[in-house]
């Protein structure tokens, strides 16, 4: 069984069915590129993987664990929050938190999760203390306090080191104290990538990560994404950058009208597409690219 298995994902908004039964699988460490024209359902698919939208039908299995099965009612949906952490998402519009520095943007979610874990531990300790015989309570309390402060210090150190490492990885160490509005689009997107990596998702998704950028800024972002590939992370990239898809992906899916029209290795999909729709799409995107260069 593959690392990620998506089976028969369907999603409709009102009368329009955007995903009409999408199934694919992905091995650990692979990069999947999702291409297709706008409105074809690429972004919806990505949003369904991250549970920003809930599919109407289908199942999702990750590492053998069923993360999502449609039709399980509200209780299952409430538990989705933790399951989201298996996936990271980098948005087209970055969506950085404007009131925090670059550093805090990357740190925030880690800090919140660490705090939750810490509070749980504290509660457990309190329960232990309550169960202990009164004579030993004082001693126990002292010990607990020491352990808790160690845990906190440890958490803090780990988060800070991690954040610094990520800043280096996206090449923005010198911008750690800048606010998002002080950065270029490319830099903002690199921060967003670091922020998504901070929670070590099993699968990192990119939703057209360079579409909102000026052409001269796309390179730096694509380089960072390529750089991640070497470090065996699994990624799903929705993109309009065909050259990028060709060079970075292990696997390509072409989506049109809510179905997978064609899939295979980059060589297969770009080199010898079987479907007429794929050929037409590739032709027109090639023309657009050349047209863009002329202008």
């Amino acid at each position, binding site marked *: 069984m593959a690392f990620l298995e998506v089976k028969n994902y369907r999603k409709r908004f009102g009368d329009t069915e955007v995903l009409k039964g999408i199934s694919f699988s992905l091995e650990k460490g692979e990069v999947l590129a999702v291409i297709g024209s706008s409105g074809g359902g690429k972004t919806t698919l990505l949003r369904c993987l*991250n549970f*920003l939208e809930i599919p109407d039908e289908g199942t999702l299995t990750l590492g053998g664990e069923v993360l999502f099965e449609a039709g399980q009612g509200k209780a299952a949906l409430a538990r989705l*929050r*933790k399951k*989201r*952490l298996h*996936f*990271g*998402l980098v*948005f087209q*519009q970055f*969506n*950085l*938190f*404007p*009131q*925090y520095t670059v550093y805090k943007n990357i740190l*925030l*979610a880690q800090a*919140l*999760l660490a705090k939750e874990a810490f509070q749980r531990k504290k509660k457990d300790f309190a329960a232990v203390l309550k169960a202990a015989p009164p004579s030993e309570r004082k001693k126990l309390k002292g010990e607990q306090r020491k352990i808790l402060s160690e845990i906190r210090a440890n958490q803090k150190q780990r988060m800070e080191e991690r954040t610094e490492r990520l800043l280096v990885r996206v090449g923005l160490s010198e911008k750690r104290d800048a*606010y*998002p*509005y002080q950065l270029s689009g490319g830099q903002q997107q690199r921060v967003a990538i670091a*922020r*998504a990596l901070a*929670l070590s998702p099993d699968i990192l998704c990119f939703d057209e990560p360079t579409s909102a950028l000026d052409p001269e800024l796309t390179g730096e972002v694509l380089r960072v994404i390529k750089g991640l590939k070497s470090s065996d992370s699994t990624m799903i990239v929705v993109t309009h950058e065909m050259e990028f898809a060709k060079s970075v992906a292990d696997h390509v899916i072409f989506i049109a009208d809510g179905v997978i029209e064609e899939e295979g290795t980059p060589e297969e999909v770009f080199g010898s597409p079987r479907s007429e729709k794929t050929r037409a799409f590739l032709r027109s995107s090639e023309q657009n690219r050349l047209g863009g260069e002329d202008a």
Partner: protein
Amino acid sequence: MFWQVTLNLLEGFGVTCLIFAATLVCALPLGLILAFGSMSKFKPLKAVVKVFVWIIRGTPLMLQILVIYYGPALLFGWGFLDRVVAVIVAFVINYACYFSEIYRGGIESISKGQYEAGQVLGMTKSQIFFKVVLLQVVKRIVPPMSNEVITLVKDTSLARIIVVEEILKVAYDYTIRGLIWPLFYTAVYYLIFVGVLTLLFGFIEKKLNYFRV
């Protein structure tokens, strides 16, 4: 004479400040609750809040003060509230409604992407609100809030309709006895108060200038 008037007006100004402060303290949080109500996905609650806000914003504050003060006694034969209390209740309800609309506008102006970014980072709804959205909302609503708060300073003068001894009422009583100037003198008090508030809001705006939304 001048000092006597100054002191008397100051006493009235104290009542003005009391109404002002009590209204702010209660209406700011109440407004937020109303704002959440008016954005609720639970349709009946949303409808009730919307109608309530419509009624309160759609009728004069002076009328509301009269209703709060005389209403319980005339309709149900209950006793009268303390005059100042009645005024404060009316002000709190009235201003909470205006504030709620400002909050709502602020909250709805935050892009969906901010919520989604929080969601994919595993944050809870309340974490997203308090850690991500709130400060951005505050930054956006400071200018309309400052307007509303400054209006509140001057609206306190409506309290004299039920004979609350706020500053304008005190000054007005002098005119009845033939002394006109204290009435105009009250402007000094209002201007100083509003001046301080303007500085304060300017300070808050400047403090929040370190980021952009």
